[in-house]
Structures are given as structure tokens and as C-alpha cells.
């Protein structure tokens, strides 16, 4: 009957399959999608996929792969089969993330001011103050509205029971939201009928909401504060996203050399002279923001920017020093952080985590390297990690030495069997692939979440790594009203 799903093996005894229940029938919210796909042949799907790839390439929706001498532009692989989240599931995600982000913002505000949580020894002071991302220069500096993390994207996964867990928080400059928006456009083109049959909540309002958030944090009392996006430039892997967001918001995309600080105020350099800037949505890391304060060799930043920020003449989103709270070691304390500031139980759980800096944990980690995923505390993008079960004995030994040499820098987590979702493979087969979910939270006067997010999918068979730099792709994510 179903040509496309005929040979689909959900492996539902070992993994949570998003579409197929343990009994081997489609879950209710996937019913209409399955019926639509049964009407299609492999060639139909191929043709649609080709169309979408062409759309992405011609629009220049690409990212850059590192490690080669000049950046190679690639299309971020897109999988046609949408991921569907029913509203009651979504509601819990939404409440859980807002709780989490609110608590993390309280945490940042606290450690950059009174440091009560450290004095109460809920979080060990040395872990915070010794973090590479803790900026002591900003102790006592209050950002507008007291908000530090205006744009965040926490990564969620589902374990074998289908329970949502937070895998990591991205509180510095999370990327990928442009794919959330573009994937939706692509799906509307490729499957207009299917789209029509579901009540999919729109995500298209994100750029407007982002602009509103940025204007809300303007330090100046203007009716129309001037917002710019600051990008490291065209060689950055997320350059497309920076330009896309600037274009969607209708604001200027700037590089460091477009901005100048005079008398602690920030200006753009234009053909008509200097123009005052109020808010900078910066996609440049802390380290590169201002050569006078951080890395002196930075060519990407603006000399004097930090002083202008400290004087309260310009707002930065996100604030400086937020990386201390998405450190993977601090991550393990987030449930305590939530209880400490909000007096609530966490709605979304963490993944069980061992800290190499804790001698008992370290022993456990070294003994179980073949079962664990070890991550470096400050790296992102899938770099600097060891997937124990998939690594060779030699790789594990090398990593063990690294861990012992610098225990503060490593954490370990059990190898989680991420939930799987049917995906269309290049050979025309539909296979189950591991996925995660990154929803985007905006926080100005109050936090809000775009209904959806970026579902990343490990398109290499059996692979657990969903990062785009490691061969991952993405899916459109539909939050539906039943």
C-alpha cells in the first residue's frame, strides 16, 4: 500500500520513533501526513527535493565549512518530511523553556551583581568565577531592563520514552533561526496541500518580534530607536543568516568597520556622515567585540564599543558575559538554579551529567568512556567532543589524557538514544534518523517563543551528531492546533 514507507523499519523497540508508535501504526498527529505521502512516488519526492535544493542554492542560502583553506559554501541539507508537534506537547516545552530562560537570566544578573547564589554555595564559586566566559569587567553593569539573554536557542532531545530533555543552552549567539524561516517557505512551496490540511502555527512573525525585542532594550528614549545587526563578515559560516535577519527586520547589516565610537556613542559611517546607533544585535563573539578591551588583534570589532556600552549609550543583544551560563559545567546546575530563584521544580529535565572536576565523577567517567559522550565545556558546533561507543580505543585514550590534564573543561553524559524521525535519504529510501529540536526564545520586556524551531537531523545513517558542520540537515517543524 504505502510505496514510500513500505520498508520503513522504525526500530521502535530500541528508539522512540516520532511517527510510528510501538505498535507500528502512525501516531494520530502524523496520520494526515502519512496519507499524503502514500500518494507520492519516489520520483515525485525527488522532483520536489530537487526544486527545493535549487531554491536554496540560487538564494545563496548556504553555510561555510571550516577547515579548508577557503570556505566552501554548501547548502544546508533539507529533509522534506516535516516534524510535527501537537499543541499539548508544545505547551509544556514552551512553559519549560520560559521557566529555564527566566531563571538563567536571574542567575546572570545575580553573578554580575550580588553573587548571592555563590555565597549560598548552591553553585561553587570557583566554577563561575573561573569560567572562561565570566567577564569580571562587567560586574556591576546593569543592561537595559536587566535582561542579558535576549535571543536564545536551547537544544532539546527526546529519550527512549519520548520525554523531552534539555541537552544544552545556547545563550551567546545561537544560529539557525533563518533555516526555521526558510524551511517553512520551502515546505509551503513543495507541499501546499498537506500544509493546508494541518493547522500549522505560523513562525513568520519572528523577525518582527525580534525587532520589537531589540527596540525594547534601547537605552535611549526615542520612538524609533536605530537597530543594526553586527556580523563578522561574509566569511563567517552564518553570514547568510545575518544578512537575512537584517533584511527581514529592515535594518542595516554592519561590519565592525562600519561602526565608529565617538565620545562614548556609537555611529554608523555613511555616505552622508555619522549616524547614531542605539541597539546592536551582535553576532560577533565577546572576544572580538572591542580590540581595546578584549583581543587586541580583533579586526571584527569596534574600538571603544565596550565603554559606550558601559556608559549605557548603546545596548548589545545578547549582553556581554552570558557564555558563563551556557557553559556545560554550569548546565549541570540549572535544575538547582531554577529552584533557587523561582522556587519551582524544573518543567524540563536535564540530561544526567558527570563533571570531570568532581573526583568521584571523574573516576566514573574514565571507567566508562566507552559508554559516555564527553564534551568540552566551552566548545560548540560539535567540535571537541568524544562519542565513546563510536570512538576507537586509541581516540578514547587520547581523550582520557585531555580530561585528566584539564578536568574543569570536561563533562560526560550517557549516550542518549535520541528520538528518530523518518527522513528521505539520497538513495530514495525512507530511513529513521536521529533528531533534536532548537526552539528560539526572545526576551525583551518578557520572554516569548516562536511556535516551532529548527529540527536538526543526522542524515548519515546511524549518526548521532546533528550539527550542520558534521553532515547534519534540518526539517521544517510544525506546531499544530488539534
Amino acid at each position: 500500500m504505502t510505496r514510500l514507507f513500505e520498508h520503513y523499519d522504525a526500530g521502535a523497540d530500541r528508539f522512540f520513533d516520532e511517527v510510528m508508535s510501538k505498535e507500528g501504526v502512525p501516531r494520530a498527529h502524523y496520520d494526515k501526513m502519512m496519507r499524503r505521502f502514500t500518494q507520492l512516488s519516489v520520483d515525485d519526492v525527488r522532483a520536489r527535493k530537487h526544486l527545493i535544493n535549487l531554491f536554496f542554492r540560487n538564494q545563496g542560502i548556504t553555510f561555510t565549512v571550516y577547515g579548508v583553506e577557503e570556505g566552501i559554501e554548501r547548502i544546508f541539507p533539507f529533509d522534506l518530511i516535516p516534524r510535527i508537534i501537537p499543541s499539548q506537547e508544545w505547551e509544556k516545552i514552551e512553559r519549560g523553556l520560559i521557566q529555564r530562560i527566566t531563571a538563567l537570566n536571574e542567575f546572570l544578573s545575580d553573578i554580575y551583581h550580588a553573587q548571592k547564589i555563590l555565597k549560598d554555595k548552591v553553585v561553587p564559586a570557583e566554577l563561575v568565577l573561573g569560567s572562561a566566559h565570566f567577564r569580571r569587567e562587567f560586574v556591576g553593569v546593569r543592561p537595559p531592563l536587566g535582561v542579558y539573554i535576549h535571543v536564545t536557542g536551547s537544544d532539546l532531545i527526546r529519550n527512549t520514552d519520548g520525554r523531552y530533555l534539555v541537552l544544552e543552552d545556547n545563550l551567546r549567539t545561537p544560529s539557525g533561526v533563518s533555516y526555521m524561516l526558510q524551511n517553512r517557505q520551502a515546505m509551503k512551496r513543495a507541499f501546499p496541500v498537506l500544509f493546508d490540511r494541518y493547522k500549522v502555527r505560523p513562525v513568520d512573525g519572528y523577525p518582527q518580534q525580534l525587532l520589537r525585542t531589540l527596540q525594547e532594550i534601547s537605552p535611549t528614549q526615542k520612538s524609533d530607536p536605530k537597530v543594526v545587526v553586527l556580523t563578522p563578515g561574509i566569511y563567517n559560516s552564518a553570514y547568510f543568516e545575518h544578512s537575512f535577519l537584517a533584511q527581514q527586520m529592515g535594518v542595516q547589516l554592519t561590519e565592525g568597520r562600519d561602526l565608529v565610537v565617538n565620545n562614548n556613542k556609537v555611529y554608523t559611517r555613511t555616505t552622508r556622515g555619522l549616524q547614531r546607533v542605539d541597539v546592536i544585535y551582535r553576532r560577533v563573539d565577546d572576544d572580538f567585540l572591542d580590540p581595546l578591551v578584549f583581543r587586541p588583534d580583533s579586526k571584527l570589532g569596534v574600538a571603544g564599543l565596550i565603554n559606550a556600552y558601559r556608559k549605557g549609550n548603546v545596548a548589545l543583544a545578547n549582553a556581554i558575559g552570558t557564555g558563563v551560563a551556557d557553559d556545560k559545567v554550569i548546565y549541570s546546575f540549572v535544575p538547582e538554579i531554577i529552584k533557587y530563584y523561582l522556587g519551582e521544580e524544573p518543567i524540563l529535565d536535564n540530561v544526567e551529567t558527570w563533571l570531570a572536576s568532581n573526583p568521584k565523577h571523574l573516576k566514573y567517567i574514565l571507567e566508562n568512556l566507552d559508554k559516555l559522550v564527553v564534551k568540552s565545556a566551552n566548545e560548540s558546533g560539535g567540535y571537541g567532543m568524544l562519542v565513546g561507543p563510536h570512538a576507537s580505543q586509541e581516540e578514547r585514550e587520547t581523550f582520557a589524557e585531555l580530561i585528566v590534564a584539564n578536568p574543569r573543561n570536561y563533562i560526560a553524559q550517557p549516550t542518549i538514544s535520541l528520538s528518530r524521525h523518518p527522513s528521505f535519504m539520497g538513495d530514495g529510501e525512507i530511513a529513521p534518523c536521529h533528531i533534536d529540536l532548537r526552539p528560539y526564545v526572545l526576551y525583551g520586556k518578557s520572554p516569548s517563543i516562536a511556535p516551532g524551531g529548527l529540527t536538526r537531523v543526522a542524515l548519515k545513517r546511524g549518526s548521532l551528531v546533528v550539527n550542520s558542520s558534521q553532515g547534519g540537515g534540518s526539517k521544517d517543524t510544525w506546531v499544530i492546533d488539534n
Partner: protein
Amino acid sequence: MLSRVAESLFWMSRYFERAENTARFLDVNFNLMLDLNGITSVDHPNYWSPLIMVMSDPGDFRAQYEEYTAQNVTDYLVFNRQNSSSIISSIGMARENARSIIESISSEMWEQLNNLYHYLQSVTPQQVHNDPYSFYKEIKNASHLFQGITDNTFSRNEGWDFVQIGKYLERADNSARLIDVKYQMLMPKRGQHLDLVKNSVDIIQWMAVLKSCSALEAFRKVYLSKIDPDNILRFLILDRAFPRSITFSICAAQEALWKISGSTTHRYVNNVDRLIGKMDAELSYTTVDDIHIRGVHDFLEEIQNGVIKIGEQLHLLYFAYHTPKIEPVDASEGLAFTGVAGGRANWSQSQQQQQQ
């Protein structure tokens, strides 16, 4: 408008125009080979070295190739990535510039430029060798399509004016170089310009010059079939109606510059406007006899230098970011900018930024 955006628009347009001109010159040379075949040896270096003199640097060419053959010159001017003015480099630079301002241009403009870029990546030297006509036509059409799209989708604000300035300054410069080189080749003896050697090979060569500017038909409408060098000089340098003549190009660039600054006749507000106004006035009141009195080569060289000076002043006035203390003392230093210059220096740092 951000200075950097203005600068990138200017260079995007300029590089695209350069690529089109290179395609034109090569195309016409191949046609010339067909016309002259049998009359004279067409793979003679004399037919190919001028192209390098017009479009590029002979020293650099000689360092990489032994001889001025059709194949070598084509390779150098179309595919060579070390040659910064090859078609592939020019389109690459035009695209880099466009990419850095992708949010400021229309998506149709980007798509067209991007298409041409991907097309060029897929073409092999063998394909061009087998069918040069189709290849150059593709480039020229792509350029015309881009200009048409720009005309129809890009708002008529300051950005559009910078696109026009880039296009017309480049065109004036390219035309001046082309006429200069061809004139010297065809009129070798000093002081004998009135004493024409009217053999058929020369006529065909002059027609080729006209063709490379798509000017042959327009020329005939004005001068019928009197293909003599003075008429050709008059047409390619001084004609006010033909869109590839030097005077037309300078006039169009002036119009765009004045629109940006608000200058008017007799009342300039900055140095660029003064220089271009002066050049326009000179061209408007010059005759072919005046050109001969000055010397054709000197006259054309002055135009090329004028275009360089205008470029320098343009850079200082609009692109050098209004920070007097970082402006170079010597204006020529400032010209190191080519829109995305500096980008390459930023490359390593940009990629150090990890993605969350």
C-alpha cells in the same frame, strides 16, 4: 547609506562591467580571426598581445605563459584565477561584493549574479575553445540581463547612483584603453595620421574595434560606410548619444555623481564633482583635430588618469568612512580598497567564531 555598502555596490557594478568588456574583446578577436583567415596568419602574436595590453598586465602574462596564442590569451583572460582581471576573477569579485551587501540589493539581482558565477564554475576551457561565440554571448547576455534586472528591481536611490558610477567609469576606462592600443597598432608612424594606409586588413581591424563596442551598426547610421580612423575616433570618444562612447560614459557618471551630492553646472560641492565636471566639459568642447594636436595616445592616457583620480576622490569622499584621522595621506594608498578588500584579512577571524 553605509559607506561600505556604497563601496560594494560601486565595485560589484565595476567588476561586472569589466567582465563584460573582456568578453567583448575576446569575442571580437575570434571573429576577426575568421574574417582574416587566409589573408594573414591569425594566430600571430600581434593579434593577441594587444588584448593583454588592454585588459591586463603583459609582465604578469609573460611570467606564466610562453607565447601570445589564442589558447593562452583566452586561458589567461577567462579562467586564470591569479589574474585579477580575468572574467572568472571579475565575476568572483562582483559576487563577493554582492554577497557582502546581499540585504541591500534585490534578490533577483543576487540570483542573476549567482547564476552566472555557478555557470562559470562549470565551464571548461575546452568548451570555450570549441564554441567561443556561444560562451561570450552568454557572458554578455548575463551582463545585460543583470543591468536590466537592476533597472527594474532596484530603487532609484543613492545605491543605484553608485551602481551607475561604477559601470560608466569602468566603461570609459576600458574604451580608452581599447582605442589607445588599437590606434597605436594601426597607426604606427608618428605624424602620418592624415596619410592613411587604407588597406583592407586595417579596415577589417577598425571594424572589429567598433564591433567590440557593439558600435558598428550605430556608427554606420551616422557615418554611413566611411570607416576611416578619424570618424571612428569621433564616434567612440566624442559621440554623445552612443552608450559605450567615452563622452557618454563620463556624462552618465557625472549625472549620477551630481544626483548624490546635489551639484549643478557651474556649482560643484566637492572635488569628485569638480573633476568629473571638468572632464565632461573638456570632452564636450573637443574636436578630433584637437585630439590629434594633443596626440591620440596622450589624450587617451589623460582620460585614463582622470578616471583614476575620480576614483581616488570618490573613495576619499564617500567610502573612506568619514574618519579623517585614518584617511591615508597619499590617496593612492586608499585605493587598495576594492570593496571586499580587508575581507580576506578578516577571513581567519571570522571563521574562528564558533557557531552555537
